[in-house]
C-alpha cells in the first residue's frame, strides 16, 4: 500500500454494532474517511450521532464490527489487544474531555506515562516530558499535582502528555467540553499552534465555532458521515 497516496488514516466502510440483550444498535454505518498527515479535522454532530464511537475506533480503543481501518499503512482492524495497545502508545496521542490526568501523579509523571509504557529510559522520558510541557507552556508546573491546576492548565498538561510520545495523530475528544470559554479558547489556540507546527489532529466537538478552526469539518448524523467539507489535498 502506498502510504503517501493513501494518507495517514483510511477508514473503509466501517460499521459498528452494539448488541445488548434485546437490542442491536448500529452506532456507525458505512463510514469512509481518509485523514492525511498534517491535517486538522473536526468531527461534529449531535449527541448520539456516533462521533465518539468513531473516535474510539480511530484511537484503537474499540474495534469496528465491519470494514477496514488502515493506520500508517498497516491494517488495524483485527489486531489483538496487546498490539493495539502498542500502536496506541506509539502512534496515537489522546486529549480527553475530562483531561484524565491521574491524580496521584505529578504533572511531569503524567506526561511521562505513555513513555513509561513504551519502555523508554527515565532520562529520555524526563527530557521528552519537559519538551512537551515547554510546548504547552506548563514547564513551571511540572512538580504540581493535577488538583493544584485549573481546568485549562490540566487540559494543557493532557495535550503535553499526548504530544510527549511524538504520535502520528492527536485525537481530541471534546477538548473544551469541561472548560469555560476563556480556557477553552486557550486550548483551541494551542491545538491550532500544534497544527501549524505540523501535527495531525482529529478533534470531536459539538461546538461549531471550534469545528470551524479545523481545516476540514466532518459532520455526522445517525452513525453516518453526512458532510465532509474543507480543503482536500
Amino acid at each position, binding site marked *: 500500500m502506498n502510504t503517501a497516496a493513501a494518507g495517514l488514516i483510511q477508514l473503509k466502510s466501517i460499521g459498528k454494532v452494539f448488541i445488548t440483550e434485546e437490542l442491536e444498535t448500529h452506532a456507525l454505518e458505512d463510514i469512509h474517511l481518509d485523514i492525511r498527515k498534517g491535517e486538522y479535522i473536526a468531527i461534529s454532530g449531535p449527541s448520539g450521532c456516533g462521533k465518539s464511537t468513531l473516535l474510539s475506533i480511530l484511537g484503537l480503543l474499540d474495534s469496528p464490527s465491519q470494514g477496514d481501518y488502515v493506520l500508517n499503512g498497516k491494517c488495524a482492524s483485527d489486531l489483538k489487544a*496487546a498490539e493495539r495497545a502498542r500502536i*496506541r*502508545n506509539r502512534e496515537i496521542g489522546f486529549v480527553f474531555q475530562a483531561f484524565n490526568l491521574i*491524580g496521584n501523579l505529578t504533572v511531569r509523571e503524567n506526561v511521562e506515562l505513555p513513555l513509561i509504557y513504551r519502555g523508554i529510559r527515565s532520562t529520555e522520558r524526563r527530557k521528552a516530558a519537559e519538551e512537551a510541557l515547554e510546548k504547552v507552556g506548563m514547564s513551571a508546573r511540572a512538580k504540581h499535582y493535577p488538583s493544584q491546576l485549573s481546568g485549562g492548565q490540566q487540559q494543557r498538561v493532557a495535550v503535553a502528555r499526548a504530544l510527549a510520545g511524538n504520535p502520528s495523530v492527536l485525537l481530541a*475528544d471534546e477538548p473544551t467540553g469541561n472548560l469555560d470559554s476563556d480556557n477553552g479558547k486557550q486550548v483551541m489556540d494551542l491545538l491550532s499552534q500544534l497544527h501549524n507546527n505540523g501535527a495531525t489532529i482529529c478533534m470531536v466537538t459539538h461546538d461549531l465555532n471550534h469545528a470551524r478552526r479545523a481545516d476540514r469539518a466532518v459532520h455526522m448524523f445517525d452513525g453516518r458521515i453526512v458532510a465532509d467539507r474543507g480543503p482536500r489535498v
Partner: protein
Amino acid sequence: MGMLIEDLKYAVRVHTRNVGPTILALLTLMIGIGAGAAAVSVVNAVLLEPLPYRDPQRIVIPWRLAPADANLGYSEVPWGDTDFLHLLELTSFDSMGAFKSRVFNLTGVGEPVKLEGMKVSAGFFRALGLTPYLGRAFSGNEDREGNEREAILSYRVWQERFHGDRAILGRSIDLNGIPYGVIGVMPAGFAFPRAEEMPGSFDFPRQAEVWVPLALPITDKASGPDELAVIARLKPAVSIATAQAEMNLFATRMERQFPDAKGWYGSRVTGLMEQATAKAREPLLLILGAVGVLLLIACANVSNLLLARSMERRGEFALRAALGAGKMRIVRQILTESVLLSVCGGAAGAMLAAAAIRLLKVLGPANIPRLQEVTLDWRAPAFAFAISLASGILFGTAPAVGALHGEPAKSLRQSGRGAAGSPVGVRLRNAFLVSQMALALVLVVASGLLVQTLLRLLAVDPGFNARGVLTFELSLPAAKYENSDRIAAFYRKTLTILSAIPGVAHAGIVETLPLDGASDATVIHIPGRTDLPGKEPYANYSIVSPDYFSAMGTPLLRGRGFLDSDTASSPSVVIVNATMAKRYWPGEDPMGKQLSLGNFPSKMTILGVVADVKHLSLREEAGPEMFVPYTQKPFPSMQLMHVVLRAGRGLSDRGALSLAGAAREAIRQIDPDVPLSKVTTLPAVVGDSLASQRFSALLVGAFGILSLVLASIGLYGVMSYSVAQRTREIGIRVALGARGATVFAMVLGFGGRLAAMGILTGILVAIGVSRLMAGALYGVRPTDALTFVAAVPVLAVAALLGCYGPARRATRVEPMIALRHE
C-alpha cells in the same frame, strides 16, 4: 414495626444484590465467631469452671518435693506412711487424706477384669467434700488395719458390672481374690485423681473405678516404700500461704527428727484447681491466644467489607438525605443491615462452634481434663457476636454519617465522581489490611514454631526402638501370687511361652514402661563415697527381665545384659544408664563398680551400661536409672508388670499388634485369672506422649490456615474495591498504551506493597509474641530465623491469591472508559 420490616426487607435486598461481599462477610463472621466460641467454651469448661466439690477453693494438695539437686527428672515425690501420720497433726487443715493407686482384678462377676483403683484414707472423701451417690464413704473405722475389706465403686462399674442394682450395698465382691464388702457408689463423672491432672511421676489412673481403705499401720517406723499423695481441705480463713508456712515448719521439725532424710521434707501446697488445670493451661491459653488473633482478623475483615460497601453507597445516602430522609432514619437502616449480617454470621458461627467442639472431643488429647464435658457456652458466641456487631456498626455507619455531614448537593457531587473514596476511608481500609496480614503472619509463625517443636520431639532418641513392639499390662491377683517366688515363676513361664509365639523375636517385662510414667526412686550407697545426710545419691530403679533391653531395642553401651543365670544364688548384678554412670563415676569406668539399694546391705555389681530412656516425656533430661533382673530380685511390686514383645523382622507395627491374640491366649492358658490390659504398640505410647504437642500444633496450624484464608479474603476485598475505584484510571492507562501485563503488575504491586507492610509489621509483632510461647517450644528458639523466613512466602502466596482475581479483573478494563464523561 412496619418500618422495621421495611428496613429488614431492604437490608435483605442490599445483602443479596451484592452477594459476593455478603458471602465473604458471612464466611468471615462464621469462622471468627465459630472458632472463638469453640475455644472460649473449652477454656471455660477446662480452666474456669469450678470443680464439682464443696468449697473447691479450700482443697489443696501438699506435694512433697525432692531436693533441687536430686536430679530425678521430676520434683514431686511421694510421702511415706509415717510422714502422712505426722502431717495429720498440722493445724491448717480441716481434713486430710492420703491416697495411692492400686490395680485390682475383679473376679466372680463375668469375665475377670482389671480395675484401676485407689487406696485412700478416710480423710480423702472428707477433704474433697464429696459424699457417694449411694451408700457412704469410709469412716475412721475402716481406716484401721484389719478393717479394710470394704470398697466403694465408680458409677460406671456399678452400671456396667452390676446393672445399677441398688442392692449392691453390703454385697461382697472379689478384688485380687480377696472379698470386699461394697459400702458405696460414687456419683457419675467422679474422677479423682485423674492422671492427666497429676504429676507424671505418680502413676495415677486416668479413671479410678474402685476405692478401698488405705488402713495405714499406726507406727513411727516406715512400713514400706514411699507411695502416698495427700489431699487436704484448708480450715476456713486459712490461706494457702499460711498452710505453706506451717508445712515449712513441719519440714524443719521432721529433718530434726530424721536427719538422714535432710532436704526431703520440702513441700509445695497447691490449690486443687491450679493442680487440675496446670498441664492444660499452657496449651489452652496458647490456643485461646490464637483464636483471639483470628477473631481480630475476622473483625478487621468484616469492618473492611462493610466500610467498602458503605463508602460505595455514600451517593445513595446523600440522595436519600436530599429527598428528605433524616440522619437517624438512614443510620437506622444501616444498623439494621449490620445487625442482620451479624445475626446470620453469628448463627452460622454457633453451628460451626458446636461442630468444632464435637471434633475437638474426638481429636483432643486425653491429657486435657474435662474435655469430654465441654458444651457450647452461649456466652462465648455472644461475646464474639457482640464484637463483630460493634465493629460492623462502627465501620458500616461511619462513612454514611460522614456522607450526611454538610450539604447534600456537595455529597451528591462527590459520590458522582466515582467515589475515589475519602482518603481517611482508604487509609483505614489499608490499615485494616496491613493489620490482618500482620496478625496472620503471627499465627503462621506460631504454628510453624509448634510444628517444628513436634518434629524435633519426634526426632528425639527416646532410648529405645519403638517400631514393631507390642506392649500390654499384666496384673496378678494378690491372693494367688502372694510371694515373690510364685510371681517370678509365673513370669518365667510366661516369657518362655511368649518368646515361642511365631513372629516374636524378643519378649521382656518391665515394671514401668518408658514414656508411661516414672519408675520408683531410691537412695543408693556407693562404697567409698561419703555423703551428707539428705545429699546421698539417688536413682530410679526398675525390675526387668533378661531379654527386656533386646525387646525394647535399648542399646547396650557397655558390658553385657542380664542372663537367665543371674539368679538369687549368683552374685547380685545391676545395669545402669549412661547418665548414672557419668554422674556417679565421672571419668571412671563404671563396669565392676558396686552399689547398694537404700537400707539393703547387699551389694550389687555393675555389669552393663545402657542408653538413657525417656520416662515422662521426650523433653525430659534423663536422670540416673538402674535396672535389676527379676530372676535375681523378685519384688511383690511385680504383681503389675508391662510385657514388651518385639516382632520379628518384616513385621510392622500392625503386625506387632496382630501378636496380641496369640499373647492373650497364651496368658489365658497359663492363668485364666490374669487379665491382660492396655494392649497397644510402643509407637502408640510414644504418640500418646506427644498428643498435647500434636493437638496444639494441629489447632494453631488450623487457625494459621484460617487466618491466611481470612487475610486473603481481606486482601481480595481491598483490592477489588481499589480496582473498582481506579477503573477509570486504569482505563486511561490502557488508553495511553499500558498492556494487560503492565496493569496486572500494577495492581499486584499495590497489593504486594500492602502485604509487605503487613509482613514487616507481623515480623515485629511475632518477635514479641513468640517469646510468650517459649515454654511450649522444644529445640527451637521463639525467634527461629528459619520459621520467620519460611512464613514470608506463605503469606506472600496468600497475598497473591487475594490479589490475583482483582488484578485479572483490572486487565479486563476497557480503555473506552476513558472516553466516558463523568
